[in-house]
């Protein structure tokens, strides 16, 4: 809708569509995941990344593109992101991309970023709800050979310079970095409150908005590096883990007995190793 201004930020937001975790089943016979019956939604931290991108656009202008890799059914979710505020979207979709681990995924996404063209910033959600690897942003930065910052809490543009100031989470604290652009930044989950869909944009997003769908031919990807073929890791087995439902186990006895049982429990749960 808004053309990128000359000094605005060209931002690409990586977005993944994930199945509802509680609806994913493991097929005990084939040892594979059955996602067929599961509803999907936009990976929640990716909405935090989108909000970060839109705030930066509000502050310094520019353009926000959405980039995703996955099957064609992802497209409506990309259009939803357009209705929230993004300007255009690209979906990397090809059977050849299927079964990719992080090495192959980051290679393919990097080819997508290169095809979109010049960029200042790639923003990703910290990690995906399904894989929870948090490895895509650093891998993508490496393929693109640009700076990276992970676990970002706050991001602002340094006026007049090709530079961002990023606050990043550390164990037990945070650090502030200055980062040369272009860069890949992963945004912590829940660092902001994603704005809701703008229904005035809905008609445009659903009907007119450009959503580019690119396959292996469009990206000129090396077949040795994409999909299952390009993935060094393999899944040797899967199993369903007990439901996270609450146990509702009643502890009874004298106050002293209950206290002892609780103390044992807490020592294991908090990993407190005798102080």
């Amino acid at each position, binding site marked *: 809708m808004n053309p990128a201004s000359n000094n605005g930020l060209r931002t690409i937001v990586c977005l993944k569509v994930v199945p*509802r975790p*509680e*609806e994913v089943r493991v097929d005990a016979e084939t040892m594979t995941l059955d996602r067929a019956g599961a*509803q999907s*939604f936009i990976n929640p931290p990716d*909405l935090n990344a989108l909000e970060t991108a839109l705030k930066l656009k509000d502050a310094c202008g520019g353009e926000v593109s959405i980039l995703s890799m996955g099957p064609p059914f992802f497209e409506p979710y990309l259009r939803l992101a357009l209705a929230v505020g993004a300007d255009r979207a690209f979906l990397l979709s090809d059977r050849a991309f299927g079964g990719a681990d992080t090495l192959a995924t980051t290679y393919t996404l990097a080819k997508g970023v290169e095809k979109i063209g010049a960029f200042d910033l790639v923003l990703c959600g910290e990690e995906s709800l399904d894989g929870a690897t948090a490895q895509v942003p650093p891998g993508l930065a490496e393929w693109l050979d640009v700076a990276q910052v992970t676990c970002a809490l706050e991001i602002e543009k340094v006026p007049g310079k090709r530079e961002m100031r990023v606050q990043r989470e550390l164990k037990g604290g945070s650090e502030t970095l200055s980062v040369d652009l272009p860069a890949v930044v992963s945004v912590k989950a829940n660092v902001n*409150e*994603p*704005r*809701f*869909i*703008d*229904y*005035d944009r*809905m008609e445009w997003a659903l009907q007119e908005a450009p959503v580019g769908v690119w396959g292996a031919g469009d990206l000129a990807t090396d077949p040795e590096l994409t999909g299952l073929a390009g993935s060094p890791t393999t899944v040797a087995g899967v199993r369903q883990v007990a439901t996270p439902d609450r146990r509702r186990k009643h502890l009874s006895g004298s106050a002293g007995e209950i206290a002892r049982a609780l103390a044992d429990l807490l020592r294991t749960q908090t990993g407190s190793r005798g102080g």
Partner: protein
Amino acid sequence: MSAQYDDGTILLDDATLERFHRATGGEAWPCYQCGTCTATCPWGRVRQEPLLVRTLMRNAQLGIDEDGESLWLCTSCGICEDRCPRGVPIVRILRALRSLAWKDRRIPEGLPSVLWAVHRDGNPYSLPPCERTRWADDLEVKEFEPTDEMLLYLGCTASYDRRIQKVARSVVGGLRAAGVQFGTLGASEPCCGETALAMGQTAFAAEIAEANAKLFAARGVKTVVTISPHCFDMFQNHTPRLDEGFEALHYTQFLARLVSAGRLVCRGSFPRRVAFHDPCYLGRRNGEYDAPRTVLESIPGAEIVELEESRAGALCCGAGGGRMFLETPVGERFSDLRVRQAANAGAEVLATACPFCITCLEESAPQVDQPLKVMDVAEIAARALEPEGADVEATASGR
């Protein structure tokens, strides 16, 4: 943008004015600024500075977008609208102003997340759709079929909130005692969209309402009976009617019909002094004051007393208009005043018929000196269904 200067001068802006008129449909024009609305608004009873409803109407007339927090205080209780000598649809105008505030991103923190939850999970509590049927795990409530007398619509709060699940179970107990053939939509039950509407997301609410209308038509629903007056209001007044014969009812209305038809008879008793708190969305917004009282009066032993402000004059609990999802500071909660009124009326039980009212009133109840139990009308009825005070809710659960 309009601007307001220290000396009281207001600079109006044509574009903003035009925008406001489009959003409100000019419905604020009949207001002649008498101030009855500000005077009747319950906020004036809990705050030094009342909610300046009259100013909000003036802003709507002139296109002044400087409402700040006050726009989000309204609980849409409708008492101002009820008393307005000019018949201004104040609540609808405030909703329109809220929709403009969304556009300008002048939104209280937390509300976008509630809407995303409704969009993604089909409920404002961010809980998984597959857990929607948990309330009835051991009740064997069946899926709705077109041959059923009615569809029981739980709504999000009765589905997920463990306190309100008890109300739903009591309603089921009452329906079963009366031999009503009914079903639910199970895990595929959608949100009614009232949360979105109350927060001013009118387009989103309309999208939900349209989908629900189609769903009801496709499933062959003629009569939908809700637990919450908010869902009832949504289906009654804001959901398109695809079927002329379609009827939305609050469960107290349905139970009252069963009582009048002699199908629902309480054989036990409930020997308590009971006061009824009229939920705004059942009473003022939909004119239903008698149905819950009909049900209560049919219960042997129950002595019904009226609260100081009741029926059309009922004081709001404070949770409507999206306030359920916003923090109200201590000392500013309407429900604190309401439980004191119940205590003054000598009530032992404060009955109501809305999940939000129950939540607020129950939280305030410990503030009065005498024991005051907050119960839903359905819970009282379920208690009195069988002699010897057998607990039907508990029986239904198989405990």
